[in-house]
């Protein structure tokens, strides 16, 4: 008994230390897949990789593109050749300076068949990269080391978003050769150094005192793995987490009880129902518009999501170039929906399947949409599957409607328009509506390749307007993130992209 009490006292005192001023406590909802950037296909891996490693470019919390290991870069007049100049004072955590050859080796490693997690597409625009990844070429012609601190990347075709793609976790710079057990305890060059990883439990990081951008203000970043949102909230309320995302169901209460601790930020995210434009009645534009008029989006947003969103009238969220705040959503109008259905030859409606994953917050939403559709005569059967099965079916074109969302990896209209609506990306590429519109395709490609920012903005607005007109989705809303941070935590903001918060300025002031 005495031993038990001593052990308990020890544990209690250890708890106190974890919450000391120098430690920040954060969490993921599931264990990262790996700590190797080449395997970063999921959000936790991407987030932790952005703490441990550097990229040539990187995002801040406002999703502004900043110089990373590259102190500067420029592009030729054609927009195909990018020249990156590296920092002289950057080094890996083991003290070795980072050279252009390390960058080249890292990019090749991420592309190499067998070592990738299947998400090296951000590097495919580089000349020869796709063939190298497929195993049909031994070299990548588009990656050239000019000297220790200069790297030239040549693209297959102009792509204005390319510097943003280099800020993706898969393009992080790793030491060459990578040390053994790299995926479990890597040596990086980022603001935080790896200390330990207890799977499904916690990851411990220590600040990198000699970081080229200055050391983080706190000593330790402890990342717990806490899958249940209500447990996350309880950990925060018990003072064990520095920040927490407020669970949707808790929003109203926390707005009363934690008002001073809350931060709100419109996310770069769409919540929508993809309409497969190649299936049955859904081929008809009038039917797709009818679906948009049939759903009472404003009421759903209030009742199901506690008003945590901005009504969508297009796919580009606020904060993305091309977003048009003046365009009105379709609006709830069941009479008009019935009229459009009658015009399309479906006065008595039709039967359809609405797919959704098992995410709890989608359950009520799907039921409400089902009810709304029933009011105009559309009999929607809800098909609930795990994420993998649902995604496979949707990508194979087997789903009529799919309730889902889209998170921006990088803040650019290209990250919405190209994957979600270009005909090249139907199915697994992200275009779950299987939309194929020649005019839209042409504008999307022009917006990707132009080197003129004004033209890009103009085209992005036109693309978004055209998407809205074609109604490949039931446009729901752009979610607004609500997080709480402890009263004594300063220097932390909700990041707009998942790699944008590197915990450099965050600290506990008490």
């Amino acid at each position, binding site marked *: 008994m005495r031993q038990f009490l001593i052990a308990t006292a020890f544990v209690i005192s250890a708890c106190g230390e974890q919450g000391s001023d120098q430690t920040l406590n954060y969490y993921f909802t599931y264990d990262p897949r790996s700590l190797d950037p080449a395997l970063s296909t999921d959000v936790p891996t991407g987030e932790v990789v952005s703490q441990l490693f550097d990229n040539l470019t990187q995002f801040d919390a406002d999703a502004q593109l900043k110089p990373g290991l590259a102190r500067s870069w420029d592009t030729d007049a054609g927009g195909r050749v990018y020249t990156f100049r590296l920092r002289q004072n950057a080094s890996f955590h083991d003290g070795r300076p980072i050279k252009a050859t390390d960058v080249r080796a890292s990019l090749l490693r991420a592309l190499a068949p067998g070592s990738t997690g299947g998400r090296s597409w951000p590097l495919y625009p580089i000349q020869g990269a*796709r063939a190298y990844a497929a195993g049909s070429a031994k070299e990548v012609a588009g990656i050239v080391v000019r000297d220790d601190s200069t790297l030239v990347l040549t693209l297959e075709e102009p792509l204005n978003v390319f510097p943003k793609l280099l800020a993706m976790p898969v393009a992080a710079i790793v030491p060459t050769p990578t040390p053994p057990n790299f995926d479990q305890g890597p040596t990086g060059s980022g603001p935080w150094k790896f200390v330990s990883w207890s799977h499904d439990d916690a990851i411990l990081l220590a600040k990198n005192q000699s970081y080229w951008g200055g050391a983080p203000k706190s000593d330790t970043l402890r990342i717990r793995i806490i*899958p249940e949102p209500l447990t996350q909230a*309880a950990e925060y309320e018990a003072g064990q987490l520095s920040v927490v995302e407020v669970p949707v169901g808790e929003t109203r209460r926390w707005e009363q009880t934690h008002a001073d601790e809350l931060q709100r930020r419109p996310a770069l995210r769409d919540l929508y129902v993809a309409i497969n434009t190649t299936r049955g009645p859904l081929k008809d534009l009038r039917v797709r518009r009818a679906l948009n008029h049939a759903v009472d989006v404003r009421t759903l947003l209030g009742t199901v999501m506690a008003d945590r969103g901005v009504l969508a009238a297009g796919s580009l969220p606020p904060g993305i170039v091309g977003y048009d705040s003046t365009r009105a959503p379709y609006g709830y109008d069941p009479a008009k929906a019935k009229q459009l259905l009658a015009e399309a030859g479906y006065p008595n409606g039709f039967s359809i399947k609405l797919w959704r994953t098992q995410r709890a917050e989608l359950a009520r939403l799907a039921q409400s949409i089902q009810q709304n559709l029933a009011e105009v005569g559309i009999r929607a059967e809800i098909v609930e599957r795990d994420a993998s099965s649902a995604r496979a079916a949707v990508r194979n074109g087997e789903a009529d409607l799919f309730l889902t969302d889209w998170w921006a990896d990088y803040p650019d209209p290209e990250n919405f328009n190209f994957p979600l609506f270009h005909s090249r990306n139907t199915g697994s590429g992200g275009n779950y509506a299987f939309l194929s519109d020649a005019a839209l395709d042409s504008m999307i490609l022009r917006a990707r390749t132009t080197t003129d920012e004004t033209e890009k903005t103009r085209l992005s607005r036109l693309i978004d307007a055209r998407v809205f007109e074609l109604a490949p989705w039931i446009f729901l809303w752009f979610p607004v993130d609500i997080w709480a941070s402890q009263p004594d935590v300063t220097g932390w903001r909700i990041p707009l992209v998942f790699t944008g918060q590197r915990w450099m300025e965050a600290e506990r002031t008490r």
Partner: protein
Amino acid sequence: MSRFILYRLALLVPTLFGVLLVTFLLLYVAPGDPVQAMVGERADPETLARLRAELRLDDPLYQQFGHYIGGVLQGDLGTSYITRRPILRDLLERFPATLRLAGAAMLFAAVVGIAVGIFGAWRPGSWADRLATFAAYLGVSFPVYWVGLILILIFAVHLRWLPPSGSSGLIYLILPAITLGMRSVAFLSRMTRAAMQEVLQSDFIRTARAKGLHEGRVVLSHGFRNALLPVVTVLGLDFGSYLTGSILTETIFSWPGVGRYVLTAIDKRDLPAVQGSILFLSLVFVMVNLLTDLLYARVDPRVAYD
């Protein structure tokens, strides 16, 4: 006895082979595609095809199964599609956490459940017995999920006596062990009460009392010992199921056990991880059952296996 053990161990082979075959076939026919789960969004068809080939998913079913069995026979449960780590290592890393939680839950259930059951049989109809009956109904009726969150709310958020979740020390065990063990407490208390009531009405108990033995000794030494068999059965079965992972409890309390590992593997369509986990956990379950059977002979000399 040793022949019995050998026989039961030999039975393990067809049992585990059956488990493997059924799991493999079920996963094969289940919808979903592991490669789609691996790559996330924005995957191109070439990458998907290349990964399918790398993972041998395009091979005929019998070849895939043969390849897998070949590995298992050499003690290799394969490598996770998602983490690229050896599955056996992942499981062995998480099993001690599950063992700790299962042990603590069983200890809680055994102490509380048996004590309440004995008391109920000793003083049937008393207010304490009625309260225990009512509590047992509550114990089996309330879902684990709800109980766990309520305990967190009371003891971690409001009273701040205990940590809400995690696994950094003994104190972290208390709430999840109570949550997990609560159902067993309910079953055990009812089971013990029923068995004890029967035993306490036996002639030998009357004889013991007539001899002038102390009531405590009558109830515990003579009564409980003879009521132990059904109690051991419940304990063994529950312990076996706890050891195979308690997905809900582990999720609510962020407990890094095998339950969450299996859940993640299923969610990600990590086929070798699901197969490996089920094989491993089946082995654990069968071994616990065997130990329970052996325990019967220990607690009741009338049970003989030869």
